[in-house]
């Protein structure tokens, strides 16, 4: 996020406040506790908690940062350091919909650049700017793993595949008019930025069964295989009853099933590069060795 894009003023109700009222704070604390419970160590909850803050405030607000810091025993500087690293964490109020045009190479060449030019001019805003009505925050986004559907536009991180300048401006107009829009591969309609943020914080919205399993390009190879009646080699277990009884008794000397603690793992696992040295497990010797080797490039 560039420093020369200062927040363009806040709408009423969006002022920074010292903190949350008691009811809100209690609700957020309960959500935070549920997030923290997912992890062995509580700091891992920080990213989902920042999504949670965005679900509440529409951006990573100062009071949200303070809430995360207080909950996780961090300083606000430590929380801010993390929040500023990730592009999805917004430092000023986001629009109801983030409209992202992929302008990475493949989409750009397939027409993403033209879509971007058209949309930016149509809305009168540039990258990371929000329309005056607060409906749309426009972004140039990086590759979103839908290259076979290029050019792609994302609305609140739902896929709108195979776009054109005309389809993208119509989409933006619908969003600003409050009309429901339907992603190509996604839920039946696009939720708001805040609702989306809550899902990213790990709280499902019960909409997973909406939409398709796959679009055309996803199935392109499968269709060709079906046409030619090509299949992968048979597994050899096809004759088995699908509801084969579960074996509760692994082979003798096997997994230690039912035994407390970690399963007994094979002797092969002793082939570690070295034995663990405990604690943070970063001994000086391997560190020194690293400089002189290419090991760091492995994997």
């Amino acid at each position, binding site marked *: 996020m560039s420093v020369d894009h200062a927040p363009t003023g806040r709408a009423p109700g969006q002022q920074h406040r010292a903190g949350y009222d008691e009811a809100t704070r209690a609700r957020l604390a309960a959500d935070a506790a549920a997030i923290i419970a997912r992890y062995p160590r509580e700091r891992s909850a920080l990213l989902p908690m920042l999504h949670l803050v965005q679900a509440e405030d529409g951006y990573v607000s100062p009071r949200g940062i303070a809430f995360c810091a207080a909950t996780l025993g961090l300083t606000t500087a430590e929380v801010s350091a993390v929040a500023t690293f990730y*592009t999805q964490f917004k430092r000023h109020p986001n629009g109801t919909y983030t409209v992202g045009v992929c302008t990475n190479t493949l989409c750009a060449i397939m*027409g993403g650049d033209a879509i971007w030019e058209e949309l930016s001019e149509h809305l009168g805003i540039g990258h990371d700017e929000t329309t005056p009505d607060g409906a749309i925050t426009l972004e140039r986004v990086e590759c979103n*793993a839908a290259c076979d559907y290029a050019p792609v536009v994302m609305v609140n991180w739902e896929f709108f595949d195979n776009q054109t300048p005309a389809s993208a401006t119509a989409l933006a107009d619908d969003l600003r008019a409050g009309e429901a829009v339907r992603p190509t591969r996604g839920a039946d309609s696009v939720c708001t930025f805040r609702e989306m943020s809550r899902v990213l914080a790990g709280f499902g919205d019960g909409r997973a069964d909406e939409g398709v399993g796959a679009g055309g390009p996803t199935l392109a*190879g499968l269709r060709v295989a079906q046409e030619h009646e090509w299949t992968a080699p048979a597994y050899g277990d096809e004759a*088995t009853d699908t509801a084969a009884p579960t074996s509760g008794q*692994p082979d003798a000397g096997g997994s230690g099933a039912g035994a407390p603690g970690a*399963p007994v793992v094979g002797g092969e696992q002793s082939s570690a590069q070295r034995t663990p040295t405990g604690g943070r*497990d970063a001994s000086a010797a391997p560190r020194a060795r690293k400089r002189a080797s290419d090991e760091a490039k492995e994997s």
Partner: protein
Amino acid sequence: MAHLTPVLSAHWDAERSWTLPVYEAGGGYRGLRKALTMAPADVLTAVKESGLRGRGGAGFPAGMKWGFLPAPDGGPRYLVVNADESEPGTCKDMPLLLASPQELIEGIVITSYAIGCHHAFVYVRGEVLHITRRLQQAVEAARAAGYLGSDILGSGFDLEVTVHAGAGAYICGEETALLDSLEGLRGQPRLKPPFPAVAGLYARPTVVNNVETIASVPGILRGGASWFTSMGTERSSGHGLFSLSGHVTRPGQYEAPLGITLRELLELAGGVREGHELKFWTPGGSSTPLFTAEHLDVPLDYESVATAGSMLGTRALQIFDETTSVVRAVTRWTEFYKHESCGKCTPCREGTYWLLQVLQRLEAGQGTSADIELLLDLCDNILGRAFCALGDGATSCITSGIQYFRDEFEAGTHTPADVLFPPERSSVFAYTPRSAQLAGVQR
């Protein structure tokens, strides 16, 4: 004609393919049932013998990676699935998870059983809302059916899975940056060694594998290692998703044995778009050196692609035809690397910044005669000197672009790329570029 081998993609066209009952009806969880009758060490051996190599780009043998875990010491061991698919051009894991997330969950249970892990994590990129929903639901459904939780299928084995959404950072696809991010920190790579196998998540022994790698495990258990090695080449065994995109008639996912060629894949995909010819392509995403039409018959396996001067990477085959400016493509990728550089190490942070400055003036037709040498010198100072593979990857398209299309970079000293290669000829729809409209130019 080369045959496709749909394994992961075999049931993607089923009605409600993403649900557990549909997955089970297609043979789902047979691999797990088989695995639970075996000793964990034998599961590990089966995966080792299959020769399954990491499908996330580096191609490191999965079984060997698991085998690097030190002997159990009573403390936790973790499996972390890298679902942060962000490499430009790469688009295989997201459709897999949208269509069939249970493939991953089953692979997670088997892998966890093999390595002695009781809490696994899926780090999914934050920019794919519906996939996050499907993953969350898949975990819930698997737990309700007894495939997750305690005493899985009566085996005594316990496993919890946490789905964790990232927040927009390409670097978190690097396994140690991913671990830092999962620990609630800025996603910056760690010094290796120690490798995650020894000191990974919370400094505990950890396996980090790509979605497709883990999703390939159930099939290996069902069919055995020899089933897997009956596909692919000797050292690049098995099936893989090949993702065709760009100037191709039928872009999409083509699951084939490793070792298939682009010529064969293009034939199945209807060829380069009508009336055009192949100019350059990436074998495995933007971080792998470019190939040209002379590489159409290179077998797409790890060894052959490396011998030909690139990397198999993620099998992200981005196809560009003769209307495309290499300088424009390379400049845009470089913009990406500059944006996504985490800033930890100087060669990458500063290098990608200056690479972009030079490339932008070449794209604008305002380069100097020294710029090509300057670019190569900059690349030489990044490659092998950056902290992680991001910096190395940033140089690939530049050095290979200059290697094959030097004259286009030289033209950047006098003619803008969009004059040499009008962008409206590359796009899938007709339009008049703003620059031409403003100048009143008719092209």
